[in-house]
């Protein structure tokens, strides 16, 4: 009887711990967990000191009032960042064709600020024939700023075996009032599009009233 009770207790406690630590069976990986966390608890983006491709200072405050799509890159990246940024390019093209680009901005933030000089950031944008008026490439101005930014977005960057990096890839959506509200994976472009369409539409309706 005591064995039965003890077993039952441990089984229940174990199930409960597993349930809690997977957010109710919804997030088994750290990547799923950070996406879920942001959806449920949007967080205000601090005012970091960044530098853009023209070597001008930039803070998120500068684009207050816009939806901002952020991706993380390093310009010598041979794989994922290229997909990330070319998807961003398509997004920019489609939204400006639909006449919706005035409330939408794009940011590519480099986590390799030593190598990614403003010059290289500019080349990166040109490579994707980006429209510079609403797409910027940025680098953090110090190591501590870089760490603060990566920690805030929970982006993990690890060195790979070819002298480059492997990193959490995704699109981070910042709302007009400066909060990180959603994260989409590279394979979720359709979801990202409909999310942005819906968000822009809601915004439009809200400003009409």
């Amino acid at each position, binding site marked *: 009887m005591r064995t039965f009770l003890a077993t039952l207790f441990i089984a229940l406690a174990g199930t409960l711990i*597993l349930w809690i630590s997977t957010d109710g069976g919804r997030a088994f990986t750290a990547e799923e967990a950070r996406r879920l966390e942001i959806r449920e608890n949007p967080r205000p983006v601090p005012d970091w000191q960044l530098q853009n491709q023209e070597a001008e200072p930039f803070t998120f405050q500068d684009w207050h009032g816009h939806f901002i799509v952020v991706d993380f890159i390093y310009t010598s990246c041979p794989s994922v960042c290229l997909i990330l940024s070319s998807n961003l390019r398509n997004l920019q093209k489609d939204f400006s064709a639909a006449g919706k680009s005035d409330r939408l901005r794009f940011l590519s933030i480099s986590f390799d600020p030593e190598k990614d000089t403003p010059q290289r950031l500019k080349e990166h944008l040109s490579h994707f024939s980006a429209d510079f008026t609403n797409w910027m490439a940025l680098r953090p101005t110090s190591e501590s700023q870089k760490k603060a930014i990566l920690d805030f977005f929970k982006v993990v960057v690890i060195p790979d075996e070819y002298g480059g990096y492997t990193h959490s890839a995704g699109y981070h959506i910042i709302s007009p009032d400066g909060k990180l509200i959603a994260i989409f994976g590279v394979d979720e472009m359709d979801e990202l599009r409909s999310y942005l369409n819906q968000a822009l539409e809601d915004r439009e309706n809200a400003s009409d009233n």
Partner: protein
Amino acid sequence: MHLTIKMEWLPVAALVILALPPMQKFLEQSMVTHMLVQIPALAVIGWFLGRALPENWGNQLAPWNRWGITGMVFAIAIMTYWMLPRALDAAVAEWYAELAKFITIPAMGIALGVSWPQLNPIAQGVLKLEFWATFMRLGWLYLDLPDRLCANYLLSDQRVLGQLLLLAGSAWAITWTLRVTFGTRIINT
């Protein structure tokens, strides 16, 4: 007498060595050594710690752990938790998750060491088969997945781990087959 005391302190010494920050860092820089060296080593340490515990502890615990069932459920719960990719990531990133790992995995080892020998042979067989199947399933999964499961580890690392799990599982299966068909004992399990 002197020698037995020494032997009992051996797992504790091993635990301390594994907990040294350079050792932690070394074993956790790759998914392979994290999952196939550090975690099993912690479990084995727990197993020996369990053997070294005073006998009257075991006697007091016995009515709560008849046939070793409670201990096995406890061990399986901990095992399942540390199979979550985000648990492994947390252990690399957060000190409290790392601490939890260094406590729960040896605790799992203790529970296994105390409970496994008491377990019914049929239950032992079923569990062994299930552990083996987990090796093969995870191995296949890691080889096949196009995405990384852990934010702190490379995809190539995940693939190597998959290969090693399949290899270990296959080796295990072969030794069983030999034992069942010819009675050959390569390893004593």
